[in-house]
């Protein structure tokens, strides 16, 4: 791998490098870190030294140690600049701003690679006597990659097979090592990896146990049966990791899951572990380093309880991160299998273990495919088969499945509250129109991120009467005991 072309930055303190953050911060001592760079999201702090030089050092280290080098090098050569991806991108379709074209965004990073890490680029810089990368270019990249929701819809359209979503992920990873990451993501991940509670919502074990007891009481009140949540049971098939926020916000989803296992007579297949109970992995959004450490916690807890499989709840990014990172970081062909709860429920239904009331939900129902579950074609038909079994008035959105539109809050952007207007107004615009066209009362979104985002989209777009729910929330109504 070529050395980073950083030497120039050292010798040439010209206006490009010199006008860096240190100078800006001195001139405006009261600016918050994100204001120094002019970002729309909050960051905790900024790398205090020469960020241009640091960016190139990080890029060089990442190319050296990870598996992105060949990918970046190939993509830097083959980009056709055809803009087919623009037609697939809901952000570009909403803004018509050329800077929102996926290929443009990817090229921000690829051009840095071409100019600083290839022979031709270094020669070009030496001859021209300039440094390509500037603080302004870092700013543009940092802003751009958090406009993208990482939905990867564009990857279907690129004739060269460029995965713009992965390049967005890589850009965010490089930026994260310069501390340029939305504060909301960093704070949650820090609590998960280094905090007392060890999960992103900071739920301590006693509170978790209280919640589970409360949910059991709720089921008793509503259904008249005792459905305990299995905790710390050893040797079960599944160890369960939902988005931990579900324990605070999505009681109905969890009740539905517990009732499903119970009704199928298979409650002894799963358990929740008190050692670790969070499926969220923001590493997928911004850091390979965090991703590996978080996935290590899921693997360790499953092994501690002698479980056979990692079971992820209704959460898109938790499912995808486990599906990708468990094999990568957990031993390849010897890694624990990863299963999503919808696959398990579908399998129970297929085996005739679940009796459902076909008239349980008379209202119109539609299904939103979370990108991280559907884009690769992993889980598309199963939830529809489950829904059709008890929803008389089921309609699909168009497009759907692998080619669905993102809820608009993907890639961690849903957690960034300060960009809500952008999230619902721009990235969520397409989804709002899709939902409106279905005329559905219930939008089923089996993903914690999508649920939060879609509720805000419905609120901000005046979609009154639409209820965003999980798959198991509705199933809970339909199960015949």
């Amino acid at each position, binding site marked *: 791998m070529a050395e980073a072309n950083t030497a120039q930055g050292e010798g040439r303190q010209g206006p490009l490098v010199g006008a860096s953050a240190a100078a800006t911060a001195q001139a405006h001592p009261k600016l918050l870190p994100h204001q120094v760079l002019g970002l729309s999201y909050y960051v905790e702090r900024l790398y205090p030294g020469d960020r241009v030089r640091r960016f190139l050092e990080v890029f060089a280290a990442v190319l050296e140690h990870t598996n992105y080098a*060949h990918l970046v090098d190939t993509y830097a050569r083959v980009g056709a*600049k055809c*803009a087919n991806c623009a037609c697939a991108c809901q952000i570009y379709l909403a803004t018509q701003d050329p800077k929102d074209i996926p290929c443009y965004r990817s090229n921000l990073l690829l051009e840095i690679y071409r100019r600083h890490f290839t022979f031709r680029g270094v020669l070009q810089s030496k001859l021209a006597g300039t440094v390509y990368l500037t603080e302004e270019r870092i700013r543009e990249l940092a802003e751009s990659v958090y406009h993208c929701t990482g939905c990867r819809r564009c990857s279907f359209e690129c004739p*060269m*097979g460029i995965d713009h979503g992965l390049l967005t992920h890589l850009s965010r990873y490089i930026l994260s090592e310069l501390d340029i990451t939305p504060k909301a993501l960093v704070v949650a991940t820090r609590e998960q990896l280094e905090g007392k509670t060890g999960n992103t919502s900071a739920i301590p074990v006693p509170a978790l146990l209280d919640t589970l007891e409360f949910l059991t009481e709720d089921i008793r009140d509503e259904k008249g049966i005792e459905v305990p949540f299995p905790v710390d049971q050893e040797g079960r098939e599944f160890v369960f990791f939902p988005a931990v926020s579900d324990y605070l916000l999505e009681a109905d989803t969890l009740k539905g899951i517990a009732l499903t296992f119970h009704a199928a007579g298979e409650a002894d297949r799963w358990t929740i572990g008190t050692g670790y109970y969070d499926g969220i992995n923001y590493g997928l959004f911004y850091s390979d380093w965090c991703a590996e450490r978080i996935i290590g916690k899921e693997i360790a807890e499953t092994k501690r309880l002698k479980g056979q499989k990692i079971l992820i709840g209704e959460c898109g990014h938790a499912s995808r991160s486990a599906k990708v990172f468990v094999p990568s970081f957990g031993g390849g062909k010897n890694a624990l299998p990863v299963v999503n709860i919808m696959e398990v429920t579908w399998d129970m239904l297929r085996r005739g273990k679940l009796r459902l009331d076909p008239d349980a939900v008379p209202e119109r129902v539609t299904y939103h495919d979370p990108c991280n579950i559907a884009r690769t074609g992993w889980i598309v038909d199963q939830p529809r088969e489950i829904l059709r079994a008890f929803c008389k008035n089921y309609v699909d959105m168009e497009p759907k499945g692998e080619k669905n539109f993102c809820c608009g809050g993907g890639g961690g952007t849903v957690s960034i509250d300060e960009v809500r207007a952008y999230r619902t107004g721009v990235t969520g615009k397409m989804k709002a129109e899709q939902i409106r066209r279905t005329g559905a009362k219930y939008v089923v979104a089996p993903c914690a991120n999508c649920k939060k985002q879609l509720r805000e989209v419905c609120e901000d777009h005046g979609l009154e009467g639409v209820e965003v729910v999980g798959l198991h929330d509705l199933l809970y109504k339909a199960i015949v005991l």
Partner: protein
Amino acid sequence: MKMESAVAFLRGPGLVLAFALLFLGILRQAGLTAAELVRAYRKAGDQRIPWSWLFRKSLGWIVPVNALRGTRIPYTVASATFHVGMLAVPLFLAGHIALVKKGWGLSWPALPALVADALTLLALAALILLGLYRLLDRATRSLSGFQDYLLLVLCLSAFASGYLVAHPASSPLPFTLAWFLHLLSAELLLVLLPFTKLAHALLFPFTRITWELGWHFVPGAGDRVRLALGKEGEGV
């Protein structure tokens, strides 16, 4: 006179040089790609590669019928048409094969002249449509740079002048000029192939496996990156 000596150069040493550069460029690309793929594979934490799925995915992209299912149908149809012409005509034109036979004694079946003509005219029409997209479509224009226009002009020139060389009777240009233009643009394309975005002609079969390996992460890489950056022991 000058034009004739230029043609003589392009037919002789120029052609050899163009092919030599093309050959060296291909060697470089092939070597780099093979080395990098092996490197990425060996570092990957999960070495299971879904070969048949990747193969089907790659094939899926080059079946022109798929173009009819995309979002930008005129563009993709034009692109597919152009690529068929670009592959078939230079390789299977009777005139080209005759030249190769004269030089190296190799020969293979040629396209009927009528088919070659039709493919050339279709490719020209497709190129004009692609050019219109580049000039008029807001998204495409905003991404376009010098290279994108240069390669388009070279392809147009190679096909148009080639057609005129094959049909001298109906050509508005003097024969030598058409010939000169054809040799120049075709040889420039050969030389530029490995060093510009045309490299996709060589790298295309590998883009899917490259993508797949990109998602095969390297265990411990995050720690090593932080060690290299002097961030060992620092928290999130």
